[in-house]
């Protein structure tokens, strides 16, 4: 009898808490979104599975010596995983469309307004009982509006590790929801005739411009915003490897196996922060709400900036492309293309939207640097 009791005490059933059960269900929901709905599966599948592993009673996978503990310590505590991913994103990014039309950079800047507006919102939320966000917390939350996963994880790991799980989940979820969140805002803020505007074809961009661009970006960043250099630096390294054309084999590995390996473990490490004690709180609800707001404001300010620029530009600008300024590459640009086609069957905005889209990646990395410097 005594032996049976002992045996029973080694089971998870005897020790599982309601919180852990809830978080395992949350993990299951993330897996459902990843597999059945194809919402950013590359990240949400490992995150969801990590959430399940992190909430196993008695197994201690997130405690010293556990597999998730090591993965988090090595990859996120050091900041290395998001930085390596960012290098990979740099190696995958073609700045051609932006270089062909530099003004588009402004749209990638305007869309970051969502970040700074949310910063205020997060501080304001402190009036809600049960929610207590420090300035650092608020900054980490607001970066969700940047719609860039690795940037969000990097900033959260520096400023608010306790909120990292919720922030990363929110960031990737909203990035996956771009096709649902953005179109209504786009239609609300533009008229049918605006959506039909055709833009001038982009000029071809020389190889040298593409090589010098990452160098120019890192130089300006180190001179003006050194706190942004970890993110921007790794991004520019990846892009320089790509555009230089002399290290093809390194570029290929960076774009494929390296980014894949790191993605798996980054996902697991993020999932390891989805523990009941930390995730199940009003704060998480606040983060999800704030993230959605940041995202919507970013989309709107991108569109409005595009309308403003259209007023002063001699070449026509379709305001829809402003929505792509939030990053979420390449999903946001594809959504712009689709909404544009709905209004005009022969209006292909994809390449025009790629400019603001990649500018948005830089924009949010810069914004992250500013937050790191100010907080």
């Amino acid at each position, binding site marked *: 009898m005594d032996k049976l009791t002992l045996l029973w005490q080694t089971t998870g059933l005897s020790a599982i808490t309601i919180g852990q059960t809830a978080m395992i269900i949350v993990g299951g929901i993330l897996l459902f979104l990843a597999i059945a709905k194809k919402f950013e599966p590359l990240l949400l599948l490992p995150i969801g599975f990590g959430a399940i592993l992190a909430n196993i009673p008695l197994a201690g996978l997130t405690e010293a010596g556990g597999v998730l503990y090591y993965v988090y310590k090595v990859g996120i505590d050091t900041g290395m995983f998001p930085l390596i991913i960012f290098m990979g994103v740099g190696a995958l990014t073609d700045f051609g469309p932006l*270089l062909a039309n530099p*003004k588009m950079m402004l749209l*990638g800047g305007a869309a970051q307004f969502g970040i700074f507006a949310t910063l205020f919102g997060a501080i304001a939320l402190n009036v809600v009982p049960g929610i207590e966000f420090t300035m650092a917390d608020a900054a980490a939350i607001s970066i969700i509006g940047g719609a860039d996963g690795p940037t969000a994880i990097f900033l959260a790991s520096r400023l608010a590790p306790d909120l990292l799980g919720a922030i990363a989940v929110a960031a990737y979820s909203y990035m996956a929801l771009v096709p649902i969140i953005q179109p209504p805002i786009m239609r609300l803020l533009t008229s049918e005739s605006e959506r039909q505007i055709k833009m001038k074809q982009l000029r071809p961009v020389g190889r040298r411009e593409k090589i010098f661009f990452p160098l120019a970006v890192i130089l300006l960043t180190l001179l003006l915003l050194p706190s942004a250099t970890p993110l921007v630096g790794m991004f520019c390294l990846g892009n320089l490897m*790509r555009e230089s054309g002399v290290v093809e084999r390194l570029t290929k590995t960076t774009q494929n196996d390296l980014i894949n390996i790191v993605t798996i473990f980054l996902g697991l490490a993020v999932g390891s922060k989805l523990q009941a004690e930390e995730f199940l709180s009003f704060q998480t609800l606040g983060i999800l709400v704030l993230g959605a707001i940041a995202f919507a404001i970013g989309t709107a300010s991108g569109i409005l900036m595009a309308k403003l620029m259209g007023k002063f530009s001699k070449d026509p600008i379709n305001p829809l492309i402003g929505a792509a300024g939030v990053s979420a590459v*390449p999903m946001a640009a594809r959504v712009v293309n689709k909404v544009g086609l709905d209004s005009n069957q022969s209006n292909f905005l994809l390449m025009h939207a790629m400019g603001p889209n990649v500018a948005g990646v830089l924009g949010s990395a810069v914004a992250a640097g500013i937050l790191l410097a100010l907080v």
Partner: protein
Amino acid sequence: MAVGMTTVIAFLLLLIFVMSLMAKYLPKGATHEPTPRSTRKQSKAGKEPSDDTVAAISAAVHAYRTQRKK
């Protein structure tokens, strides 16, 4: 907030300025381009269709539809 947003915009304006300079003063090196571009395309092959591809296909589809209506 104001400071942050201003800084972002100011920084990006500067980048725009630099990019315009680059576009103006960098030799285009048109002859050099073909090789690296082709290599790059290969390395992309096997991943998601490049946006050029997507654009080209959309355009083709449109052209086809237009033609059919006639």
